[in-house]
């Protein structure tokens, strides 16, 4: 376990990820609820119901998230054991069946998250997202195919690829594939970019 951070100290954490999630949901509900006041009663009724449900669930998640650290073993109910104290992703204690099931679920690509919020873990996804955002921003400026080629080179470099054959193969292959499948087969008008128009 690393040094405690505001979001992930081992014990007695004031702000667990669950608490933050719950509060975000409550705030989100409040903001949207405020936006329903300009609507007619008929148009607003259903969204308001949905928002109240969301706020209630958010509050429940927040309360449960705050309480969780105080209880070493959550009951076999709906508390997520993978975020119980001491259950670091690397060392799941195999003491009770819930923790074991949680260990199985932690690897589930669509299932429960790992709850690892250390900055060291988040740095790479954040940088990758930055590259992707730049890619999308460039789409309409330098054109779809050029932006895609450039992006592929940049992201491969970021991922540690240094072999020029991989660069060439991936960039040429994917751009050609996109061109033939989308522009040629499916006749999607890909933006050419304002620099070239």
């Amino acid at each position, binding site marked *: 376990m690393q040094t405690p951070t505001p979001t992930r100290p081992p014990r007695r954490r004031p702000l667990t*990820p*669950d608490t933050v*999630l719950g509060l975000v*949901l409550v705030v989100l509900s409040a903001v*949207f609820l405020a936006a329903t006041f300009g*609507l*007619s009663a*008929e148009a607003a*009724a*259903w*969204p308001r119901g*949905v928002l109240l*449900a*969301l706020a209630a*669930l*958010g509050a429940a*998640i927040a309360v449960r998230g705050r309480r969780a650290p105080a209880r070493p073993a959550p009951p*076999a*109910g*709906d508390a*997520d054991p*993978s975020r119980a104290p001491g259950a670091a992703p690397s060392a799941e204690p195999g003491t009770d*069946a819930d923790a*074991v*099931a949680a260990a*199985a679920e932690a*690897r*589930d*690509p*669509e*299932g*429960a*998250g*790992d*709850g690892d919020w250390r900055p060291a*873990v988040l740095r*790479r*996804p954040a940088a*990758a*997202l930055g590259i*992707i955002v730049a890619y*999308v921003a460039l*789409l*309409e400026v330098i054109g779809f195919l050029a932006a*895609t080629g450039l*992006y*592929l080179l940049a*992201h*491969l470099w970021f991922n*540690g*690829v240094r072999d020029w054959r991989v660069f060439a193969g*991936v960039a040429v292959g*994917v751009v050609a594939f996109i061109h033939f499948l*989308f522009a040629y*087969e*499916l*006749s*999607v*008008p*890909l933006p050419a970019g304002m620099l070239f128009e």
Partner: protein
Amino acid sequence: MDSALFLDALANLFTVEVLLAITAGVVGGIVIGALPGLSGTMGIALLVPITFGMDPVAGISMLAAIYTSATYGGSISAILINTPGTPAGAATALDGYQLTRQGKGAKALAVSAIASMIGGVVSAFALLLLAPPLAQVSLAFSAPEYFLLAVFGLLIIGSLSAGSLLKGFAAGVLGLLLATVGIDILTGYPRFTFGTTALQSGIELVPALIGLFSLSQVLILAEGRDGATEAMTSGLRGRAMPTLAELKRILGTIVRSSGIGVFVGILPGAGGDIGSWVGYNEAKRFSKGPEKEEFGRGSLKGVAAAESANNAVTGGAMIPLLTLGIPGSSATAVILGGLLIHGMQPGGALFTEQADTTYAIMLGFLLANILMGIIAVAGARYLVIATKVPVRVLVPIIVALCVVGTYAVNNSVADVWVMLVAGLVGYLMRKVGVPPAPIVLGLILGAIAEKGVRQSLVMAQGDVLGYYLSRPLSLVLLGLILMSLLAPVLAKRMRRAVPQKAEVET
């Protein structure tokens, strides 16, 4: 189905485009499933825009082919490196990896392929036989039933997703909220558009699907914790084909597991992972003496039981998907998105007006399962080589396909931004343990639920409770909703019935 319809469906199925699409789906699905970190759901979401330009039979059959093949593919990495490529492969790893350690990896793969094929074929027949009569029921649905159905679907998928109940429900409700964005069809008021015109038509399904399932997965992969796939080829040793005697011994297990898988699949919300655990447990329970001892130490029966069950789940899960529009898992939720962009609204109409297309898709699914078995038995060795492509090279390619695919559906860069936001939200949600599938289902069912409840309030003329209780179909659905509230408890028990020790080490 009558013979004219059958011939029409066959004519729709046996075209070059459809057969190519199914083959590509099978090969691609196996590879995606075998790569730890890439799930079939992600592959299906990525391909939904490509199917947009295809014939519906080719497009949807390809998605279904990926679904079933990725389920088999998950067993490859489970058997060879003890890392299930998909959650449904976890039970397979118990015995499969032991077989690899004993030098029988190739045989385990072949048994898994045969079991998967039989499970898939059985489920495809179940789909062909059970879906049409069930779809008849949905013809009698009116506003109250549609509302209850939407509630039922959300409860089910929210409660059976891995992780916490509260978070699953919150995800579903969040999806309902996203569905209200845009112009209200009944009153014309723009809701939650915050002054923008881009949001007036609502949040598009395809960008949301790709963002939540594909891009968020990319961000998780970017954390760099993917397992090494290089070791996979070294496990492929020994004689591949099982002997006839071995096949005879496991046939009973396969048939029983296939039946279990179909049944679990039909239960909306119970996915392939539950199916494979139940199939595995039952196979163990039915075995006696030394055979029982073998379980967990490299039993071919164990591999066969888990794999036939999880592939049988795929066809079973498509029954509620096609007849009611209730997807049982995240993969089927994405396939539902694919159906909708082809203008195919699940329910009775699929089996009447669009019957030739629907039957062709179901027959295509059957064909995909057979093809999967053949390709898997003959070519597993070569497909394993394809999994050696490192994730660091795959990730940029996947992102480029996410971007171009999202763009292609509406030729809109704004959609690409929606996809990016959905990807970031999906990533954060996954990190905090909120499953993405209920969000998508809420987005799909939101409009149906709202319309159903508003119309039924008008139709009830004040006495809402009396109105709902006076309708037999509503009563059945209310009963199902009550049952679904009990389902999480059952699902938890099924999930943890077996994985006592072998799970932690994997």
